């Protein structure tokens, strides 16, 4: 029976691609593993490998065809003893979407390109830090982070980047793309897989006056290194009676990616936010990512900089200002409203902003605050908003127990109890390890409808 070769998906989110080039012609014999075509997606050029053996009976989709949907028939492979007449015979074994072997500029490895670029539509309130009339460039969070590092490395020779696959591979998630080329292997350093070792080494280098940027492939792997982050980096200034500093940035993606299961999908925000001696930043937009990473690199203290894999590919406006630096510890009002305050950060903002849109349609005006920094926590901005709305919902992806939401609830009732007209509600990830199954994973994460429901509950609608 002939075998249908289907358009493959490079990642669970790829929906279509361009059939750039056939590497075989009709009549060619192929063995499993032979390259048969090149396919382009928005991010990568992939080489297709044949899975089954046989002879190419027909190339169904012509070279150069764009927008070929995943799982569409692209070629037919004839098995032994068949000729091309068997192609038209209706029922064929529908199996062989060939291997997708990306060959160029794919995002990560252990890094599925989870979410495509997709521009982020409306950020309602203008950022007060950006002067009116400033020119804007539309760039991804990934590029913003890279630009921040490159700019700081240009202006300060003591700044260097270290981590797994940061140099030659250009970053597992391509955040350090191009840095090796510009700064060389003295300043862009590939490490072995030895997080505890290189986090300690970098902390020591910081004590000696350098300014390391340590990339963790993801923060899940920083658990190997957390002793140095807390015991070595965070406490040195205090233990040395103020003599010794440890100016270092620990950065990388934090929180849930897509379908990678319990050991690769954890949000550590409140773990680090609890530690005196650290600063903790968790930006959402590209402009904040850039401005805050530059601030983190210059900061004389250890800074834990929590990124999000799903946000890496999102595009935002970033001001074209020489030296765009933002202060650590300042929240930002993303959207103004008088009925309820929704506080969130990082990926949580996607649910919060979505919910705010839906609520607006029903006449409930939510004020949405992006914390941006988790330590120090800008409680004043939250309280100012609660004094206006008298209602508060906190949205975060992490587990609910002892979370950022718990801390905010505690401080707001201490400092603004009389302004509250309803209990403070938390919308969070569920109190379970992240499941792999698609349906369970969805349930484990917070959602915009859950935020809407919480808002309706505190506004008594």
């Amino acid at each position, binding site marked *: 029976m002939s075998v249908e070769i*289907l358009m493959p*998906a*490079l*990642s*669970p989110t790829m929906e279509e691609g361009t059939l750039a080039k056939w590497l075989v012609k009709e009549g060619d014999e192929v063995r499993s*593993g032979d*390259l048969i075509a090149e396919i382009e997606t928005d991010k*990568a050029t*992939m080489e297709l490998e044949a*899975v089954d053996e046989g002879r190419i009976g027909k190339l169904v989709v012509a070279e150069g065809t764009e927008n070929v949907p*995943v*799982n569409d028939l692209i070629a037919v492979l004839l098995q032994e003893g068949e000729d091309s007449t068997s192609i038209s015979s209706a029922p064929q074994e529908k*199996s*062989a*979407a*060939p*291997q*997708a*072997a*990306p*060959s*160029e500029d*794919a995002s*990560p*490895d*252990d*890094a*599925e390109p989870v979410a495509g670029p997709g521009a982020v539509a409306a950020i309602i309130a203008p950022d007060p830090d950006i002067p009116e009339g400033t020119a804007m460039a539309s760039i991804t969070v990934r590029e913003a982070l890279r630009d921040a590092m490159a700019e700081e490395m240009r202006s300060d020779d003591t700044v260097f980047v270290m981590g*797994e*696959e940061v140099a*030659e*591979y250009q970053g597992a998630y391509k955040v350090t793309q191009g840095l090796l080329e510009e700064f060389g292997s003295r300043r862009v350093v*590939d*490490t*072995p*897989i*030895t997080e*505890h*070792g290189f986090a300690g080494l970098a902390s020591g280098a910081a004590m000696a006056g350098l300014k390391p940027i340590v990339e963790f492939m993801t923060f*899940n*792997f920083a658990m*190997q290194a957390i002793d140095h982050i807390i015991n070595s980096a965070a406490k040195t200034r205090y233990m040395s009676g103020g003599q010794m500093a440890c100016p270092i940035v620990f950065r990388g993606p934090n929180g849930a*990616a*897509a*379908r*990678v*299961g*319990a*050991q*690769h999908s954890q949000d550590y925000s409140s773990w680090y936010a609890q530690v005196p001696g650290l600063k903790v930043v968790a930006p959402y937009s590209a402009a904040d990512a850039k401005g805050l990473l530059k601030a983190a690199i210059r900061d004389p203290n250890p800074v834990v900089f929590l990124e999000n894999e799903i946000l890496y590919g999102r595009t935002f406006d970033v001001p074209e200002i020489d030296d765009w630096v933002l202060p650590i510890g300042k929240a930002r009002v993303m959207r103004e409203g008088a009925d309820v305050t929704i506080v969130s950060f990082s990926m949580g903002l996607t649910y919060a902003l979505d919910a705010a849109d839906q609520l607006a349609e029903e006449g409930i005006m939510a004020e949405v605050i992006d914390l941006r920094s988790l330590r120090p926590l800008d409680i004043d901005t939250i309280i100012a908003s609660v004094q206006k709305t008298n209602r508060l919902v906190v949205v975060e992806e992490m587990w609910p127990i002892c979370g950022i939401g718990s801390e905010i609830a505690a401080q707001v009732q201490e400092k603004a109890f009389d302004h509250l007209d309803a209990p403070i509600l938390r919308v969070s990830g569920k109190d*379970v*390890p992240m*499941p*792999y*199954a*698609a*349906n*369970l994973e969805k*349930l*484990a994460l917070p959602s915009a409808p859950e935020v809407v429901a919480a808002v309706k509950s505190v506004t008594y609608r």
Partner: protein
Amino acid sequence: MATKKAAPKKPAVKKPAAKKPSSRSTTKKAATRKKSPQNQPNVPAFSADEDLEAYKVMLTIRRFEEKAGQMYGMGLIGGFCHLYIGQEAVVVGVQMASEEGDQMITGYRDHGHMIAMGLDPRGVMAELTGREGGLSRGKGGSMHMFSTEKHFYGGHGIVGAQVSLGTGLAFANRYYDNGNVSFVYFGDGAANQGQVYESFNMAELWELPVVYVIENNQYAMGTAISRASAQTDLSKRGVSFNIPGEQVDGMDVRAVRDAAARAAKSCRDGNGPFILEMNTYRYRGHSMSDPAKYRAREEVNRMREEHDPIEQVKARLLKSKTVNEAGLKEIDAEVRAIVTDAANFAQESPEPDASELWTDIIEEVSA
């Protein structure tokens, strides 16, 4: 447990018979193999039955992984999916040397290990699709699978974690004095994690029955071994702990079985741990979305053409007339049927019930 007796010391680092020349420079190309099956005289022969058995299992793993790759391409498998294609001889050879009750533990590249241990391919594939019929009932995924019945302890996503866990399995064997051995698999990249050496020290100190099987497939993601390791002869990584080590042609299932059998016997005889560096190669990218630009296509092709573990056995089977071409076709059809059945099962099995989100987190203890 008693600490190590001072008196009868086993010989220090054993010099294995079939050892690679030790003159490796750090600039060595990762996949330059100094030893090919052809010029390796001392490989103990397999009987026709053994060749046939090894062939079937290795082929099942290969076809299973190819199918998993396809299903990933169709969006049926999500997240990370690390294929074992090219490395089949390692797990199959070690399994052939193991005894009932011996444990195995590995990282995330784990599908082949479970198939070699006799777990139902249906359960493995259904875990890859995240369905109720999966080994972890859809909750673990490709990287996290376990089987208490078959003494398979996972399936671990954190590079290096399995090494201390596997050493703990050996601690339990020693504690129960049950004569079993723990086979601990990890990669050339994992071999640089600190806990590996903390484990080595304890394993030797307490003479634990553990065989460390280092699957040196020459790369850790995009990093060739020579770019990450000061000592690229991984069989020597136990030297400072007095753990004997051997380099093995991990593409030759006979060499693997032989080395694993000797290492396991040494463990069972009470001599403490053993290190086997299996020189092998992964044909595919690190995971499904690895562009694999760090190595030349020719390097991959050369490994496949000259060292393929399955082709080696196939050639022997034909040469010895154990099976003819028609016989091979039959085996191939049998194996494809098993894999197709697993794939169908994995697609038909339903997603776990929503209530499963809240189960298996902790065992309730009644007051």
